[in-house]
């Protein structure tokens, strides 16, 4: 019976396995998430850094495509809809804006109120929209992979006190929220700030609630500082604890990312991927360096996805294919 169930599950899972992966979203289960924060940061740093200066249509298309796919892998099927929606909206919006307000360019399409509307301006608007959308999508993925813990750790390496402050902020925000709810409920139960009160009354109650929150929190913070002092806060030579390990795997990944990143940044900096929209569209003729840049940047774009898919495949192989 057990074997039967096990077999069934395996068959079902393998049939639609890869698709399910893009439907539910891996989130923090993603293999790339488990890499050292430095690896995560450098990878996204290069991807987003280069994306911010890309105007080459091929690059833009790749950034958008890879970004949308990765965001679907991390966030699930729903991300497709929001991403495509955002891309379309930006395209229409920025193309229109740029087309109507910028009159550079040699190819005049038509005149509107005696102003030129040029093909170049429209295309440039479209390219800027793609750039912006691409960066936003990648930042969305970055946000999932770089959890607050990782941020705190990386900042802590540079400025230890900042790491602690950040950690405290993440602690106190939900606490304040919970307190405010309790205060609001308390006031409500005294017949304040309920539906039917006047506008002025409600605003007054709101400020009263905020003032209670401040008084309460200040009072509580005395206890917090006592507890910090009781545990030796303020002694010289404070260190910062973290749970991360820099393993061989991380070293290899960092080396690969570093190589790919340096290649693509150099290529871009040398202007091998340059394109000019004004006055007329001019694309630099591709040479060997262009292809090297393209290849290394493409590799960077698909690297997190490849790592995640490989991780997922391995996992399934290990547990469902014995």
């Amino acid at each position, binding site marked *: 019976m057990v074997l039967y169930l096990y077999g069934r599950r395996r068959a079902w899972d393998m049939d639609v396995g890869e698709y399910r992966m893009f439907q539910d979203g891996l989130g923090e289960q993603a293999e790339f998430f488990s890499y050292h924060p430095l690896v995560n940061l450098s990878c996204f740093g290069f991807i987003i850094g280069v994306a911010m200066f890309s105007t080459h249509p091929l690059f833009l298309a790749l950034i958008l495509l890879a970004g949308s796919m990765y965001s679907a892998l991390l966030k699930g099927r729903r991300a497709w809809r929001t991403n495509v929606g955002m891309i379309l909206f930006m395209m229409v919006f920025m193309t229109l804006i740029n087309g109507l307000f910028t009159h550079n360019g040699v190819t005049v399409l038509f005149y509107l109120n005696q102003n030129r509307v040029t093909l170049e301006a429209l295309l440039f608007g479209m390219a800027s929209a793609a750039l912006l959308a691409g960066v936003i999508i990648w930042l969305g993925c970055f946000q999932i992979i770089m959890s607050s813990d990782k941020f705190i750790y990386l900042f802590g390496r540079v400025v230890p006190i900042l790491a602690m402050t950040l950690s405290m902020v993440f602690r106190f925000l939900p606490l304040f929220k919970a307190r405010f709810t309790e205060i609001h409920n308390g006031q409500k*139960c005294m017949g304040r700030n309920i*539906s039917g009160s006047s506008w002025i009354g409600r605003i007054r109650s709101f400020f009263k609630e905020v003032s*209670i929150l401040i008084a309460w929190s200040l009072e509580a913070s005395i206890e917090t500082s006592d*507890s910090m002092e009781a545990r*030796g806060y303020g*002694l010289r030579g404070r260190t910062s*604890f973290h749970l991360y390990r820099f393993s061989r795997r991380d070293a290899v990944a960092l080396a690969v990312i570093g190589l790919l990143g340096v290649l693509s940044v150099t290529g871009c900096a040398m202007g091998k991927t340059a394109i000019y929209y004004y006055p007329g569209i001019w694309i630099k003729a591709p040479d060997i360096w262009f292809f090297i840049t393209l290849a290394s940047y493409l590799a960077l774009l698909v690297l997190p996805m490849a790592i995640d898919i490989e991780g997922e495949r391995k996992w399934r192989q290990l547990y469902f294919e014995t």
Partner: protein
Amino acid sequence: MEAIVFRDVSFSYAGSEKKALKKINLAIHPSEFTVICGRSGCGKSTLLRQLKKNLAPYGKLEGEVLYYGKEIQNLKERESAAEIGFVQQNPDNQIVTDKVWHELAFGLESLGLSNAAMKRKVAEMASFFGMQNWFQKSIQELSGGQKQLLNLASIMVMQPKVLILDEPTAQLDPIAASDFLATLQKINRELGTAILLSEHRLEEIFPMVDRVVVMEEGSILIHDTPRRTAQFLAAGEKQNPMFYGLPSVAKIFSLLKGKGECPLSVREGRLWLEHKLEKAGVTGKQTEKGSEKKRIARQKRRPGTTGKGNTSIRIRDVWFRYQRAGADILKGVNLEVEEGEWFCVLGGNGVGKSTTLKAVAGLIQPYRGYTEVGGIRVEKKNQKQLFHKCLAMLPQSPQAVFTEITAEEELLEALYHWPLSDKEKVRKVEDMLELMELDELAKSHPYDLSGGEQQRLALGKILLQEPKILLMDEPTKGLDPFFKRKLADILGKLQRRGVTIFMVSHDLEFCAEYADRCALFFDGEIVGVDTPVAFFSGNSFYTTVANRVARQWFPEAVICEEVAGLCEEAMM
């Protein structure tokens, strides 16, 4: 050598003539487990805080406080931080960082340990405390009990020799509190750490500790073993106020004028009672003699409501969940509370008790069913009507209603919207201060009051709304046994004025003694409603300690006085 010595210690707070501590002499040995008890404001916290260099209050200190022969104030910062651990009352306020693992390492970070060393110590501690499953969690996902355990663990990780705890379980429910105390016992037994804690709930702590210190108005009344302390507190003409905090078994023992060793646990109490009753020739279940009326008079129990009064709160088939996709919290709750009744809802953590209270107050909207209060449907459009002289709720944290700088003004603020003359308002406030027995503290800042006093001030503020129905969420949390009785008195007075009291509680003993009816809440619904006697004698585990001790002879006795009374009668 003694771990801690207080030698002729007196202390008065800055700007105050009154001595908070008077000539304290106390020695704590290494690996000793000591509990300090006494009424709120008797100087327990002041005493404990002298032991931590940075937490010692400002004021004038006379005498010496020594840690292994060295004066506390002369200890090195590092030594004081690492070797003397201090846990406070409020679980939330002590936590600094956002993750469990980070909080655990906070003290070690201060000491400047390397990452590898920290990792190892943190791992050790997490295993000792059984925290593996929530090690990676965010603080906000933890329960109150887990938070307090984390506070304890984050101090134990520094391997202190002395652990000081200032009412650590006051904000916890009884189940979390006993977990916490059991962990303390484990630390004491297995690691040999000396523990000094102040505590109100003596029921469970008494059998665990080596020594008990009882304080009264800044001086030590007695410092002895738990058994002898119990005997001391029960003896004498006038019972010491701390008598009410004693374990039920010890109370029954002293009410029956027991001789010899005082029993402390249920097991010991049963054996002692069996021995005593056997000698008097009483065996087996004793059926009640005399009429119901006589019984009630004998046990000083108020006659319960008749069940024929008007309905004050009606909960009809209420279903509720927080999120569309979430699980149901309330699953068809049905309940009717009569006018002028004192009704208690009991039950474990997270079964939906507080949510029910919120539904009655209209703070949440059920997706099926409805609630009615005083004949008014609890709905958004009726809110004004509901909260006007009809319904009031005391929040769990009294701080949630404090806005002013003195207790007096706090109460005046409650009357701000009433169409009354100033004179009338002042009179009402004075009456309320008197009722809450806060007249002497009228000019104090609300935040300077003790937990019990804050609770009463908040209650006073709520009561100035003149509600006919009072809702309370855990009103006995953090109160000392003496204040608890006072609260019961105040609520009793209100009840006689016709106020309906509907409370949610974990405090079995309190509900058994004062409630008219009790209900057991489990898994989103009410599984039983009855008068306390029927309710508790019908349960076998979820019942009062007194009932567990005496149930084989007197199944209907649920509070200590009843057990003692029936015993006396049976032995006559």
